[in-house]
């Protein structure tokens, strides 16, 4: 077995400040997270808003520096490589909102050419490469000259995917790639990603709060709760026999349509009161030290 992405004891804490700027403590957005993704696999990272999913993605991309811990891509620690071409060639990211991740003043071709220029791709061959990439994400060639505001959400996300794949990375981080899209468009974008993953031998880190999407797409999942992975394993096992209360709660909150699906839904013991929020847990953490189990 060889891991494409290995994350070891990754921690990120942000200092909190009082009204007058005095540091009062810190929030652990990501607390001692470890997991690994094997080559060619899809690893799903699920959790609600604020669980630290995006912070992990940002640390992998080098947009945020970890407080401690290590990130290894293809066996190499990324710590010394952030911002280098070598790092960019190994991992790319598809952002959550394609409306925001494409520059509104630049055409599709100009946006896709950014990684080509940055990675020293032959200038003369660029138009052809851009055409190939548009083909790959099933967009017509004529879109090359359009501006983002002339495209639909799904089309924009396809452009973002083409751009991320322009330098043929081995690992693709998908930070909620479909949450800004219509449900009908979601499925088609996910199908495209699955096909591209197979064709290009990609490894995916798929971050989402949409558990039904994850069930279809990921081979392994990790459930992230307040910055910690509370449960991890094969998707089928985690979804059918959740062992952690929080996983059960997440699964129970997936809306279902059919009676069969309702029958498949895990029976959960009702928890009294509300789900603990980050704030409450922080308060608890202050009182009792030691490992907190929600």
């Amino acid at each position: 077995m060889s891991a494409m992405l290995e994350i070891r004891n990754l921690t990120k804490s942000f200092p909190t400040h009082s009204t007058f700027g005095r540091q009062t403590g810190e929030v652990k957005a990501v607390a001692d997270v470890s997991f690994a993704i094997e080559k060619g696999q899809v690893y799903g990272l699920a959790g609600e808003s604020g669980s630290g999913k995006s912070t992990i993605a940002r640390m992998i991309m080098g947009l945020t520096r970890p407080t401690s811990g290590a990130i290894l891509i293809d066996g190499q620690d990324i710590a010394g490589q952030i911002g280098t071409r070598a790092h960019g060639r190994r991992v790319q990211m598809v952002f959550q909102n394609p409306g925001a991740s494409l520059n509104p003043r630049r055409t599709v071709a100009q946006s896709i050419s950014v990684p080509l220029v940055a990675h020293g791709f032959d200038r003369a061959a660029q138009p052809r490469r851009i055409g190939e990439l548009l083909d790959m994400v099933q967009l017509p060639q004529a879109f090359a000259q359009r501006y983002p505001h002339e495209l639909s959400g799904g089309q924009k996300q396809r452009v973002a995917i083409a751009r991320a794949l322009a330098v043929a990375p081995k690992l693709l981080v998908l930070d909620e790639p479909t949450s800004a899209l219509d449900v009908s468009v979601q499925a088609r974008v996910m199908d495209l990603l699955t096909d591209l993953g197979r064709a290009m031998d990609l490894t995916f880190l798929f971050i989402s709060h949409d558990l039904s999407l994850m069930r279809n797409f990921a081979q392994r999942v990790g459930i992230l709760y307040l910055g910690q992975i509370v449960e991890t394993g094969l998707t089928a096992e985690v979804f059918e026999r959740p062992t952690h209360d929080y996983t059960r709660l997440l699964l129970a909150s997936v809306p279902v349509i059919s009676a069969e699906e309702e029958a498949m839904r895990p029976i959960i013991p009702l928890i009294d009161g509300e789900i603990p929020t980050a704030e409450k847990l922080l308060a608890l953490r202050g009182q009792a030290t030691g490992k907190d189990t929600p």
Partner: protein
Amino acid sequence: MTETTPDLMLSNAYQNWYRFSRNPTAMIGLVIVVLCVTAAILAPYITPFPDHVGAVTNFRARHLPPSAVNWFGTDNVGRDIFTRVIFGLRISLLLAVVVLGIAIPTGTILGMAAGYFGGWTEIIIMRITDVALAIPPLVMALAVAAVLSPDLLHSMLAIASLWWTWHTRMIYSITRQLRTQEFIEAAETLGASKFHILFREILPNCVSAIAVKTSLDCGFVILVGAALSFLGLGIQPPTPDLGTMVAQGASFLPDFWWESVLPGCAILFLALGFNLLGDGLRDLFDVEDVR
């Protein structure tokens, strides 16, 4: 990078032109600006007495009121004021072009650098900007004229040395907003160079703001320039300048009112044109940003 296909550029440009042309005040501004610029360029060919630009005297024709021959009347040495006003536009426009030609690139680059890099770059650039903002351009021009000599070039440099600050502040705040946008982060993760991010990602998003501010600024620079000439710090006689004409004509008020009022109206006209144009551009780009 591939070029945008001409037909699409045309259709976008046409859409923008259509929206712009439906805005009456913007169109008035555009007409005034085009009229003034054309008149200034063609001044030697369209004015009735091109030789009156120099030190010509014709004392028999002095202080003549506006008539069919001398549309704006004549001044205290008998020169045609209309001719001199048209030539005066040249100096005003030259001043605007030189000052903004220095101030806009300087302000834009400094603002983008401060907003994007942050840290010490931001602290140093923005504190210098704050200090420079505290000095009125007119006072600076007076100081420079006192140290060097009263001259158009010195005045232009004095104004330009302070004018960039407004652009820096504006571009800085736009860049600060853009810096946290996903498309900038995306460009970073894609390996784009700092140069690329500043000039290819951020700058295109500043262009509309720069266009609006440039147009509005032209009006203000022309007014400051006229004030400088009025104080005798602009171009030196006999070269015609609107501010100088207002100053000289003022000593003959109110009997020979046309000698100062009409050149004054020309200043007003030109500044108004640029301001209306700027407002029109702002409306145009506001709509574009919403869609």
